[in-house]
């Protein structure tokens, strides 16, 4: 009777141990990569102030293989956002979706280590400032099959440089302009509104157009400019240097296109008011949040002036 009882107790202990190991493994699965990341691992990351940016680190492949064999469990990761001097910025990283990261309690985890190998980071004031370079650091810490964190090994720390730049701006430098006389828009003509932008192109500008005060065109967001190919040495300067995208009624080269259509009682002549509602640049569009651009001036008026058709002179009737 006692022998049978000892056997039962031993069986129960074994089952419990297996459950504990299985539980640790359940808590510490690697996330499925959600972001689309740069294939290059050597470039810096340029981010817009106020944006939330995702970061991902691939777990050690050999550890993953051992996990598959049941010899190890999932690693944990220490993510840190620091100055270039490795001073913590005090930024709390989040999951890719914006939730809280998972920390396992001792002995299965440790303070500062998270189960997620993909996070998101809000780069906002006052923790960070425009025109400043920062670092994202991550260290993988292995966890043996026992699930005891302290029995694992800390890996080396990898670093990614972060350049925080301002949100893009758009300025319409001329309040209004007019097309040349006789630009009869019967067949349609494209007017390019000149704009000055800052940021890193290409920019996407959202704008609408009214014709003689009535809604005319809900213009699709228009991409203007090209990627200038910044380097770490120039990105801050490039991001804040105004870029003039000069448009003209005749040269289809740059600016915001507005199609001048004929038709109607006024044959397409009159006033077209272009209103810019947003601008994004190549960097701000990377954000997981919608980062609005800075609209310095938003409206531009185009006058399409008809050449008068002088009517015949009327005189007092002779007969």
């Amino acid at each position, binding site marked *: 009777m006692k022998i049978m009882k000892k056997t039962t107790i031993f069986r129960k202990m074994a089952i419990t141990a297996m459950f504990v190991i299985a539980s640790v493994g359940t808590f510490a699965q690697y996330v499925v990569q959600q972001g689309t990341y740069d294939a290059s691992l050597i470039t810096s990351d340029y981010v817009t102030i106020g944006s939330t940016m995702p970061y991902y680190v691939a777990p050690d492949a050999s550890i993953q293989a051992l996990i598959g064999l049941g010899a190890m469990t999932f690693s944990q990761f220490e993510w840190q956002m620091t100055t270039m001097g490795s001073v913590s910025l005090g930024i709390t990283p989040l999951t890719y979706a914006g939730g809280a990261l998972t920390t396992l309690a001792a002995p299965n985890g440790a303070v500062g280590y998270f189960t997620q190998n993909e996070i998101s980071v809000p780069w906002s004031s006052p923790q960070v400032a425009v025109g400043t370079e920062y670092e994202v650091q991550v260290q993988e810490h292995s966890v043996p099959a026992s699930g005891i964190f302290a029995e694992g090994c800390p890996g080396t720390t990898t670093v990614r440089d972060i350049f925080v730049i301002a949100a893009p701006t758009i300025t319409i430098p001329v309040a*209004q*302009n*007019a*097309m040349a*006389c*006789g630009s009869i828009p019967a067949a349609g003509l494209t007017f390019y509104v000149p704009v000055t932008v800052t940021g890193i192109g290409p920019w996407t500008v959202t704008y609408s157009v009214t014709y*003689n*005060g009535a809604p005319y065109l809900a213009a699709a967001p228009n991409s203007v400019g090209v990627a200038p190919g910044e380097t770490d040495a120039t990105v801050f300067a490039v991001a804040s240097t105004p870029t003039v995208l000069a448009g003209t009624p005749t040269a289809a080269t740059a600016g915001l296109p507005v199609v001048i259509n004929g038709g109607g*009682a*006024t*044959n397409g*002549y*009159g*006033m077209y008011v272009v209103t810019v509602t947003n601008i994004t640049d190549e960097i701000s569009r990377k954000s997981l949040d919608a980062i609005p651009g800075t609209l310095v001036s938003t409206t531009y*008026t185009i*006058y399409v*002036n*008809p*050449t*008068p*058709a*002088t*009517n*015949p*002179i*009327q*005189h*007092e*009737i*002779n*007969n």
Partner: protein
Amino acid sequence: MVVKRTIFILVLFIFLTVLGMKNAGAQSYVLSTVSGEGIDSVTVRSRMGYRITPDSIIVSLVEVGIMNPSIYNWSFSDGTTVLNPDGSTAIAVGGFYADTAISAVIGNTLGIISVSVAEQSVPMAGTGCTGGTQTLLIQVLPRPTIYYFPPGLLQAKGACAVENYSLPLSLSGYGPWSVDYTITFNAGAPVAYNQVIGSVGNNVGTTPINSLTLDIDTTQLANGVGTYLVQITNVRDRISLKSLDSTLIQAHPADLPTVDSFMLYVYPTPVNINTIKHIKNW
């Protein structure tokens, strides 16, 4: 009684004359593209009106506040001064006038002149656009003339009773003519009358027509027996009546009869015939 009526008629005549000085009546404008109206016939020294219709598209844009009203570079080939429709001096800025309508006092030279205009748009921004130039030829004609026919005679007619008279005329110009005349009874105060003579078909120019008459009916000779002096004081033809200012087209003395009167008599008819007397028989 007769004096009071005469004074009333004179006052009425003066009032109507003054009224007509600035507004010769409702003017009827026509496009120069209408058949027969491609040239504007005017009388020397008349004040004529011209106007155009603004470009309809621009008008639409002006109405919604997107363009300013157009301006117009009115000009005459002979340098005639451009006036406002009311006859005041029109102010040009950079050669352009603000009004679609103007007037001008035509010069004294007979012949062909022209008036031209181009509409220039005034946009809210940028430079305006100048439309094509429209030109209207103007034929400057002499004033009409009127004489009793045959001219140069002191004519008279009479009868023993009041009756209608048709005084033969010699008219030049373009009918119908508006003839002002007075009838003075026995050297009293003249009474003014007006009569329209002829028709649109009477286009005689400077070659007089002698078949028309000034018809004096009995109502104008109602003072009874005596003399009625018929004097023509003014004549205007269809062309001169187009003038916006009637004072400018008054007939000159040379336009009127040299011997400018026609005397009509209403002779007394004896009614109290006495008995025929003869030498006493015994």
